[in-house]
């Protein structure tokens, strides 16, 4: 895209194509191209290089420009709830986050509140062991809210710093499953002021425009406070988070870059904007 000498139709169509291929979606792509068009007409942008730089800055600005840190509780424990659709990477991301926080010196407890899916508890237990976190579980089929409650109670009585709650994957359109999630949140809130302090929506970067529906409905149900964008080590760009930022102002807090325990990094809006166009 950057080798053109002047801003012509072929160049702007190339920009549009890049954004759509990155899953930014039509409405947000059109919004960005209109903004660019205004700048070109006002002579603020005159060359292809300037146009590209302008778009990158617009995207970074929509994404909040700077890193978005975790919301810490005024007094421990901080409670973090992982939510999202099936297979997006919640359990793995939780394991990575537990490791990251433990390495910062925090005492972490992991709650196996996915009591539904085959071997979900076993899977999370491996991650808890790898990260050195404490692990709270009940039997498969138990009430997820009870597991979350137990973990929070344990953290409070033992002076632990963070409670990480894993939940079962669920499609956002399944009303009864969203009600189950609301109940988990209510139970946490009742047991601790301000809990959950962070509700992280785990989004798979290969997801298309349906991610917007996911963000809307999960936000509506359990007040999502941030996004973890996983599987960015693939070829998908995850551009839908730009549309999500524009519509819902949800910040991306972390990105998943692989299946290993260290493959979780903070989200840098400028780096992401840069990568959208490569």
């Amino acid at each position: 895209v950057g080798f053109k000498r002047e801003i012509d139709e072929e160049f702007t169509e190339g920009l549009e194509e890049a954004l759509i291929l990155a899953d930014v979606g039509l409405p947000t792509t059109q919004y960005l191209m209109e903004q660019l068009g205004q700048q070109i007409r006002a002579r603020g942008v005159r060359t292809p290089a300037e146009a590209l730089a302008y778009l990158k800055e617009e995207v970074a600005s929509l994404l909040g420009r700077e890193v978005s840190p975790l919301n810490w509780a005024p007094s421990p424990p901080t409670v973090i709830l992982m939510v999202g659709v099936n297979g997006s990477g919640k359990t793995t991301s939780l394991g990575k986050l537990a490791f990251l926080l433990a390495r910062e010196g925090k005492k972490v407890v992991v709650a196996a509140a996915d009591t539904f899916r085959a071997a979900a508890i076993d899977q999370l237990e491996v991650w808890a062991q790898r990260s050195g976190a404490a692990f709270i579980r009940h039997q498969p089929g138990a009430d997820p809210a009870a597991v979350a409650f137990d973990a929070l109670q344990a953290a409070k009585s033992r002076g632990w710093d963070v409670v990480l709650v894993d939940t079962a994957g669920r499609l956002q359109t399944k009303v009864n499953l969203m009600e189950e999630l609301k109940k988990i949140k209510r139970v946490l809130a009742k047991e601790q002021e301000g809990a959950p302090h962070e509700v992280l929506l785990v989004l798979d970067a290969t997801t298309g425009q349906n991610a917007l529906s996911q963000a809307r409905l999960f936000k509506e149900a359990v007040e999502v406070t941030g996004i973890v964008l996983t599987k960015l080590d693939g070829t998908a760009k995850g551009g839908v988070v730009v549309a999500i930022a524009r519509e819902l102002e949800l910040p991306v807090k972390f990105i998943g870059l692989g299946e290993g325990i260290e493959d979780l990094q903070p989200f840098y809006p400028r780096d992401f904007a840069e990568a959208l166009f490569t």
Partner: protein
Amino acid sequence: LLSERIQGIFKKLRSKGRLTPEDVDGALKDIRVALLEADVNFRVVKDLVNRIRERAVGQEILESLTPAQQVVKIVHEELTRLMGGGERGINWAPQPPTVVMMVGLQGSGKTTTAAKLAALWKKQGKRPLLVAADVYRPAAVKQLQVLGEQIGVPVFSWESQDPVEICRRSLEQNLPFPPNPVIIDTAGRLHIDVPLMEELKAIKEEIQPQEILLVVDAMTGQDAVEVAQRFHADLGLTGVVLTKMDGDARGGAALSVLAVTGCPIKFMGTGEKIGNIEIFHPDRLASRILG
């Protein structure tokens, strides 16, 4: 086949009587937007719309007394041509066992779908065997074992870090009643992970499967083309399974996968329960994509 929205586009066309190329262009623009919003890949949409345009601005249309009908017919034909092709059934081996290999990206639904297929074929009187060849994901073998237990299907596993060895051993068993089909659950992997794609080729070489099914999440976006192309180039896919069709994703990825591989979509996952699997129906997907 065509949904309300596309009906609306054509209603506008019909009201015009004779069509100019500009009228057709307007309709095609609307169709392009509908497909992109449904996550069909940008370039797949471009090719599809160009093919439709080439046919729609031909003499036959501009001379026709019912040009709008002709355009509708062409769009319908092009979409059905994309979706309808290919043998939808399983290629059963003349000599058992039939070997079915599940492949795809991380989290797409391979393990769950493997169990669903096993349950489906067991109901049809077959004697399936599930093979736990994912040696990487924590508790992956246990996940398949729990599912196998739920449906009364045996699960083969082996203490080994080599999936090729596990698959070979699963076929070497000397059982009184040989299993058929043998369903191999592989680890999720990226299409750009060369060593892991080589591993899949090695598994294929070892077990010579009749079916290699790419499991694709229905909510996949533009990347579906890249993924499908790589898996197909490396392995020679025989079919596709679209999972999580019980959500509200439009499923345009399916069209993209079809366009670049020509492989038939054989099954759809429609929920988390073992019974939630169906034979794929092209017309239902078409109306879902066109919104």
